[in-house]
């Protein structure tokens, strides 16, 4: 299991020389992330609270798989407000990469990660531009997005890994990826660019030492599970979700009212009708998703009440 941690310089330079990714825009299909990198990225994303944070990932490639070995934070915040935010931290990145080489960490920079607190893992317009830029000059390069807020309510790390297509490339029809709620104020940004990139399958790996340490932590992990309340931890996020839901409902309602005024069902094109229904079905899906999470939270509260509060 620890073989993956050894860096093969010859293979890396050979791959770099062949540049297989230039022949197939869809070349990279999988990502393997080390437990260490995942933890560091998740903790960093969480520390940013509601502000987007940014960092760099180190690793290598192996055939059509990108391997993320480690990650480090960049002194950059609020990445959704400027293209190529990492320009603020170039100096830091260069120094960090050089210092790494000096201590024998040979992996190169293999991508960047940033957070979308509370609005899901996808690439915004700014992210697509940043990733395209990086894929032009720093290949192989991966974009990872983490949603620390949804991580808490979902009970697992909300993470996505993406690669952009070259400008003007028409991708074949994508299989629908796992459904996720996009807030109304971000839907525009999401919709316009969602065809310019594709998600990679993410798997994780850990070293024997990681396994040992995680087992030790696991002994204490059950305490965290029992002494935390998802209902409390995520109140602001849930309130935001419900208000977003209300907006979407009103939105859908006005659209329906509007189309009814235009002479109701028989005049409306079936496609348009379908589109309207899919809007509503998405809203219904969002509301059941939020509620299920709330009910899970309530169930754990009730179990704790029975367990610890009975006289």
């Amino acid at each position, binding site marked *: 299991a620890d073989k993956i941690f050894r860096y093969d310089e010859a293979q890396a330079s050979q791959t770099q020389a062949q540049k297989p990714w230039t022949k197939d825009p869809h070349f990279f299909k999988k990502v393997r992330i080390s437990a260490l990198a995942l933890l560091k990225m998740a903790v960093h994303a969480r520390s940013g609270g509601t502000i987007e944070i940014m960092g760099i990932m180190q690793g290598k490639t192996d055939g059509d798989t990108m391997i993320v070995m480690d990650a480090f934070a960049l002194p950059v915040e609020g990445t959704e407000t400027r293209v190529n935010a990492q320009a603020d931290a170039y100096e830091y990145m260069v120094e960090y990469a050089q210092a790494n080489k000096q201590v024998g960490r040979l992996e190169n920079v293999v991508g960047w990660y940033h957070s979308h607190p509370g609005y899901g893992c996808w690439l915004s317009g700014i992210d697509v531009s940043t990733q395209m830029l990086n894929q032009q000059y720093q290949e192989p390069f991966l974009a990872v997005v983490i949603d620390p807020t949804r991580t808490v309510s979902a009970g697992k790390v909300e993470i996505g890994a993406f690669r952009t297509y070259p400008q003007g490339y028409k991708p074949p029809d994508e299989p629908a990826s796992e459904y996720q709620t996009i807030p109304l104020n971000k839907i525009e940004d999401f919709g316009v660019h969602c065809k310019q990139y594709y998600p990679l399958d993410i798997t994780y790996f850990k070293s024997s030492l990681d396994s040992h340490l995680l087992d030790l932590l696991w002994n204490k992990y059950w305490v965290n599970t029992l002494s935390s309340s998802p209902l409390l931890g995520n109140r602001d996020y849930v309130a935001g979700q419900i208000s977003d839901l209300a907006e979407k409902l009103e939105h859908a309602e006005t659209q329906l009212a509007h189309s009814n005024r235009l002479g109701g069902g028989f005049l409306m094109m079936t496609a348009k009708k379908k589109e309207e229904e899919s809007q509503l079905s998405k809203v219904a899906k969002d*509301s*059941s998703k939020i*509620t299920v999470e*709330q*009910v899970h939270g309530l169930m754990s*509260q*009730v179990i704790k009440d029975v367990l*610890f509060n*009975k*006289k």
Partner: protein
Amino acid sequence: SLLRQVSSLVRRLPAIDSAHFREEFLTEYNDTLLMTYLAG
């Protein structure tokens, strides 16, 4: 020492028992049930 540990554990239960907590707990409970109803 073991018995002392056990008795201190027993004395910690129930974990909390106050009217204020009961009130907060039920508020949380009702909010969630209300949400479930509205989602339904």
